[in-house]
């Protein structure tokens, strides 16, 4: 995608239009891996400084500054440590990382090699969700090509630096996208999160320092190192610099992945980038950052700018940039029901407030199916959600509670009517 005003390619999808760019020779002909070669001439600390100066924020959902996270990592270059790429992309509504790596796996690999050199990690893993089998195959093929070129393995390009990179497939568990859950899973265990601190940067995979970064964060590194932090900061705002991938689904004419500067208005994303509302229907609501993000009504949706601060100021979160657009035909009771079934199914079960709480939230909708719900159940949902927040090892309980409370705040009357509507006759499993 082009930034037409500055006639410059954006950071992440600039190779995407090139046919066959998943092959290394085509990627290199377009300038791929040049930045990596330049980076091996630079001091690792200088790379870290550049990334920090760019203000890049973690693109997995939490939005923590990547350079600051890197700053927590040990500077002892000999110590055994790992680079772990989070490609477990499971937040409902999110499909940007899949879109990025299935067409351009090398941009991620280049970003990981540069990051590995900066952080002095000897081994790296791309933890990709089990459902992305074909994408794992694409990545493995690309890694093989990079090994053949001497960009991976022993003594990369004569630098004396060794870095091995592997793809590790998950097997279907949302919680493995949480970085400590991912580490448990990589260790061959159930993907149950671990208490923080210690953070993975200090004590991660196998108890050793582990840097966990999202696909999109790592894929932005080559651009930042090529054009520099000031160029990256031309986009977005002071606190939310750069470009971001957004996954847009739901009631728009053109669902898909776009790359736009942070702080692009949601209205422009819907109306310009996604071709407007499907069937010319009216906008009712938007989930702006994956199913964990509290919902916006139409008015707020049209006002919000998609950066970390503005979405938060309006009561939700940018999250992974998964935008689900809902039109006037949608019932918010259905949306909340589908959301809560998901969190109940995906709770890993180790913390009581989450294991039980997600079940209680969902149970209101089960009662509704039997025609046994009560109008006070909406208050019950609110109270249950509130008692789950901040009580658990990881953020899954909060991720279920936030959209519940958000939905009640914006669409209480509709929810009350929904739970009181007699059940539809459902086909039995």
């Amino acid at each position: 995608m082009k930034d037409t005003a500055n006639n410059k390619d954006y950071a992440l999808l600039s190779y995407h239009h090139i046919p066959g760019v998943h092959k290394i020779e085509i990627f290199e002909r377009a300038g791929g891996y040049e930045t990596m070669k330049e980076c091996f001439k630079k001091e690792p600390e200088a790379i870290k400084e550049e990334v920090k100066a760019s203000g890049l924020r973690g693109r997995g959902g939490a939005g923590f500054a990547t350079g600051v996270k890197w700053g927590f990592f040990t500077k002892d270059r000999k110590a055994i440590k790992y680079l772990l790429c989070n490609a477990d992309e499971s937040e409902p509504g999110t499909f940007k990382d899949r879109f990025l790596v299935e067409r351009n796996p090398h941009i991620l690999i280049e970003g990981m090699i540069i990051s590995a050199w900066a952080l002095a990690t000897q081994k790296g893993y791309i933890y990709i969700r089990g459902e992305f089998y074909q994408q794992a195959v694409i990545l493995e093929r690309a890694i093989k090509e990079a090994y053949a070129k001497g960009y991976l393995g022993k003594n990369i390009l004569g630098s004396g630096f060794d870095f091995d990179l592997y793809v590790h497939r998950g097997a279907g568990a949302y919680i493995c996208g949480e970085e400590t859950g991912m580490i448990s899973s990589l260790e061959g265990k159930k993907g149950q999160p671990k208490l923080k601190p210690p953070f993975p940067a200090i004590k991660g995979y196998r108890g050793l320092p582990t840097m966990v970064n999202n696909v999109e964060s790592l894929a932005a590194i080559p651009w930042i190192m090529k054009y520099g932090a000031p160029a990256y900061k031309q986009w977005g705002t002071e606190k939310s610099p750069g470009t971001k991938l957004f996954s847009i689904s739901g009631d728009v004419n053109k669902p898909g992945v776009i790359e736009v500067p942070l702080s692009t208005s949601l209205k422009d994303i819907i109306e310009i980038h996604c071709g407007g509302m499907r069937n010319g229907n009216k906008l009712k609501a938007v989930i702006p950052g994956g199913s964990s993000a509290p919902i916006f009504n139409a008015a707020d949706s049209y006002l919000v700018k998609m950066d970390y601060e503005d979405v938060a100021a309006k009561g939700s979160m940018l999250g992974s940039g998964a935008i689900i657009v809902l039109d006037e035909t949608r019932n918010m009771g259905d949306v909340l029901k589908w959301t809560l079934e998901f969190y109940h199914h995906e709770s890993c079960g180790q913390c009581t407030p989450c294991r039980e709480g997600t079940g209680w939230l969902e149970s209101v909708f089960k009662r509704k199916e039997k025609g046994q719900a009560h109008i006070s159940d909406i208050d019950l949902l609110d109270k249950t959600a509130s008692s789950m927040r901040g009580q658990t090892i990881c953020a899954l309980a909060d991720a279920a509670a936030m959209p519940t409370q958000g939905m009640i705040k914006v669409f209480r009357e509709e929810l009350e009517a929904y739970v009181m509507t007699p059940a539809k006759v459902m086909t039995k499993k």
Partner: protein
Amino acid sequence: MSTTETFEFNKDNLATYKEYLTRYDDVESALLPVLHLAQEQNGWLPDHVVSYISLLMSIPEIKIKEVISFYDMFYDVPVGRNIVQVCTNISCSMFGGREIYQGLLKHFDTGYLTPTRDGRISLQKMECLGACELAPCMRVNDDFVGNLDLTSAIQKLEELP
């Protein structure tokens, strides 16, 4: 899937297993890849497969079973030759993903993961598959198929071997 009471990796998979071990700094970390591999060979992961892996990797059987039961894509029950995962999360449900799942169960006269009588298909209700631009979508074995309705979904699955 046919199951015998004994299991061991075939020659190719044994070589792959050994290659997996070189990727990690301990044996346990290879468990998920090894389970994928065993399931690929055997179709599902019954007790005798677990016993084999337990001996092979020196991991207690109960730890392996814990892992199998935790992840949606490891099967501790027999499944059909083709696994069909239907997304029922928000974006897909908006466009009838749930009705498609229910319709497929009815058409193939089966239940969650239960193989069809000819052993051809197991249907699995899934949470967000990460392909929402294709809503409603499903995974047929390793591939995404999107923009479905019940008729096109049935048609697609009837073509399966």
